[in-house]
C-alpha cells in the first residue's frame, strides 16, 4: 500500500470554478441595474439568507439522489412536518420566546429545532423502510410511491392541526435589524446565513475529511464497487436519508420563522423550489446545490425588485438558461 503512495502524489482532479463565479458575477451585474448601493446590499443579504435556507432543505435531496439514485418526491413533506413540530414548542412557550432576553429565546429556539430534526429523521427512517425499500432501482414506482407519501403526510398534517394557518412569530431578540451605514440587515437573515454556512461547511467536512464521507463519495461514484469491498451501503444510505430528512426539517423550521407562519402547503410550495435548485446544481452534487440555491434566491430577490411581473417565472427562466449552458446542471455527477 505504501509503495503506491511513494510513487508520487495522485494527479489532482481538474477543478471547475466557472459555476462558483456565477453568483458573484450575477450580483455584480445587478449593482448598476438596481442603482442604489444600499438597496443592492439589502437585497444581497436577503438573497443570501433565502439561498442558505433553500440550500439546507435541498442538500438532503441531492445527496440521496446522488448516493442511491432515489428521487424523493415527498421531500417537501419533511419540510412541512419540521415546521409543524416546531410550533409544538413555540406556541406553548410563547412567553419565553417573546421575552426580551437572548438566553430565554434560545431556550425555545434550540429545543424546537432539535425536536423538529429528531422527528423528521424518524419520519425519514419510516419513509425509507416502508416506501422506498420495496422499489429500489425502479424510478417510475419511486416517483409514484413518494408522491403518495407526500399526499398522506400533508393530509395527516391537516387532520391533526386543521387547515388554518398557524402563526409562528419570531423570538423577540431576533426581530429588528442591524444597521450598517444606510444598509439594514434583518437579524434573522444573519442567523439564517450563519446556520446555512455552518451546515454547508459541516457537510463538506464530513464528505471530504471523514471515512463515512469517503464511503458516501465512493458510493456516488460506483455503488457496486463499495458493496464489493464489504460495506453495507444500504445502511449508509439509510443514514444519509435520515440526515437529509432532518436537514429538511430544520429548513422547515427556519422557513416557518422567516415567514412567521406555518401551513401544510409549504411542502408543495417548496418542493418545486427545491427541485429547481437541485436540477440547476446537477443532481447529486452538494456544491452545485449550494450555488443553485444562491442563484435561485438572487434571481427571486433582484428579479422581484426590478421586474415584479417577471418574478413568477424567473426561476423557470433561470433553469432554462442554466440547462442550455450545461444540460445536466452546473456540476454533473458522473455516471448518472
Amino acid at each position: 500500500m505504501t509503495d503506491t503512495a511513494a510513487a508520487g502524489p495522485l494527479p489532482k482532479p481538474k477543478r471547475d470554478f466557472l459555476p462558483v463565479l456565477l453568483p458573484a458575477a450575477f450580483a455584480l451585474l445587478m449593482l448598476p441595474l438596481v442603482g442604489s448601493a444600499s438597496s443592492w446590499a439589502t437585497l444581497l443579504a436577503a438573497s443570501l439568507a433565502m439561498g442558505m435556507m433553500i440550500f439546507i432543505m435541498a442538500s438532503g435531496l441531492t445527496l440521496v439522489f446522488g448516493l442511491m439514485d432515489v428521487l424523493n418526491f415527498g421531500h417537501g413533506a419533511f419540510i412541512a412536518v419540521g415546521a409543524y413540530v416546531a410550533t409544538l414548542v413555540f406556541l406553548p412557550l410563547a412567553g419565553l420566546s417573546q421575552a426580551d432576553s437572548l438566553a430565554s429565546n434560545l431556550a425555545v429556539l434550540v429545543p424546537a429545532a432539535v425536536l423538529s430534526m429528531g422527528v423528521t429523521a424518524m419520519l425519514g427512517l419510516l419513509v425509507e423502510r416502508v416506501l422506498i425499500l420495496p422499489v429500489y432501482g425502479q424510478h417510475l414506482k419511486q416517483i409514484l410511491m413518494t408522491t403518495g407519501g407526500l399526499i398522506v403526510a400533508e393530509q395527516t398534517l391537516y387532520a391533526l392541526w386543521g387547515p388554518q394557518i398557524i402563526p409562528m412569530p419570531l423570538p423577540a431578540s431576533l426581530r429588528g435589524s442591524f444597521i450598517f451605514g444606510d444598509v439594514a440587515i434583518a437579524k434573522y437573515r444573519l442567523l439564517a446565513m450563519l446556520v446555512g454556512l455552518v451546515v454547508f461547511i459541516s457537510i463538506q467536512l464530513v464528505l471530504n475529511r471523514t471515512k463515512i464521507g469517503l464511503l458516501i463519495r465512493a458510493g456516488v461514484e460506483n455503488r457496486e464497487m463499495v458493496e464489493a469491498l464489504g460495506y453495507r451501503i444500504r445502511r449508509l444510505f439509510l443514514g444519509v436519508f435520515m440526515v437529509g430528512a432532518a436537514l429538511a426539517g430544520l429548513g422547515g423550521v427556519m422557513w416557518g420563522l422567516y415567514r412567521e407562519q406555518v401551513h401544510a402547503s409549504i411542502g408543495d410550495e417548496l418542493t418545486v423550489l427545491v427541485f429547481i435548485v437541485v436540477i440547476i446544481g446537477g443532481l447529486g452534487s452538494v456544491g452545485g446545490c449550494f450555488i443553485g440555491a444562491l442563484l435561485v434566491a438572487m434571481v427571486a430577490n433582484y428579479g422581484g425588485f426590478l421586474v415584479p411581473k417577471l418574478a413568477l417565472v424567473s426561476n423557470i427562466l433561470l433553469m432554462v438558461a442554466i440547462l442550455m449552458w450545461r444540460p445536466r446542471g452546473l456540476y454533473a455527477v458522473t455516471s448518472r
Partner: protein
Amino acid sequence: MMILSGDPPRSRLLAVLLIVIIALLLATPWLFPGAKAMNVAVKICVFAVLVASYDLLLGYTGTVSFAHTMFYGIGSYAIAIALYAMGPSWAAIGTGVVVGLPLAMLLALAIGLFSLRVAAIFFAMITLAVASAFQVLASQMSWLTGGEDGRTFRLPELLRPGTVLIEKSAFGFEINGRTLTYYLVFAVSMLLILALLRVVNSPFGRVLQAIRENRFRAEALGYRTVFHLTYANCIAATVAACAGVLNALWLRYVGPDTSLAFSIMLDILLMVVIGGMGTIYGAIIGAGIFIIAQNYLQTLMGTASTAAADAGLPLLPGLLHPDRWLLWLGLLFIASVYFFPTGVVGRLRRPKAGG
C-alpha cells in the same frame, strides 16, 4: 374489432364491466336525470379521456409528467376566454379549439425537446416546475384569465339548457340543449379514446413500449427515441387539451381550481394506477371507480365522521372528515402501487393458473 384497433379487452369480466360503464353513461340522461348524476357522468367521460392520454405517457412510454393538468387547463381556458371575449357563438368555440390545441401541442413540444433528452426523472421534475409556474401565471394574469375567480361564460343558443329540442310529451322525457351537450361530450370522449387505442396499437405505439422496456436497446435498433417520446408527449398534451375543452363546455366556468390545481394531477395519477397502467381501458375503469367513489363515498365519510364525533372518539372525526378524503386515497394509492402495480385491468387480464 377494427374499431378497437385489434386490442380487445381480452377478459370477459373486463368486457362486461366496460360495456356496463359505457351503457350507463349512454343512458344517464334517461335513467338519472338529476343534475348531480349528469355532472358525475360528464366528469367520468372527461377524465376517462384525460387519464387515457396520461396513460399514453405513463403506461406506454414510462415517463412521468406532472404537467398534464397544465395542458388540460390550456384547453379549458382557451374555450373560456374565447367564449367570454367573443360572446356565445360557434365561431368562438372554433377559435378556442384552433388556438388552444396547437398552443398545448407547442408547449409540449418545447418541454419535450428540452427535457426528454435526459433521464425520465429529470422530465418529471421539470414538468412539475413548469406546471406550477403556469398555475401561478394563470392566477396572476387576471385581465385575461379572471384570476382566482376564473371566468363564467355562456354557450351558443343550441347548447343551453333552456333550448328545448323535443318536448317532454314525445317520449316521456325532454331533450334540451343540456342533453345535447352531454351527448356531444360523450361522443367526443369515446372518439378520442378510440383514437388513443389506435395510436398505442400502431407501430408507433410498439416503439413507445420498446422505449419503456429498454430505451437503450430501442435506440440501438435505430429508433430516434427522443423523437418518439416528444411525439407521444405532444399527442398526450393535445388530447388533454381536448378533455379541457369538453370540461369547460359542460361547466360553463373555468377557474384554477377546476382546471389547473395540483390535486387534479394527483387524481389523474390515482386513476391511472387504479385502472391499470399501459392499458387504455384502464382509464375508463379507473375514472369510473374513482369519480363515483369521490362523489358518493365522501358523503359516507361525513356520516362516519359525525358518528365518531358523537361517540366522543379522539382523532377519528378529523381523520374521517370528508375533506380528508385525499388521505385515504393516498394510502390506497401507495397500496395499489405496491400490491397491484398492474391495476384493475391487469388483474382481470391475468391468465388463470393452469388455464
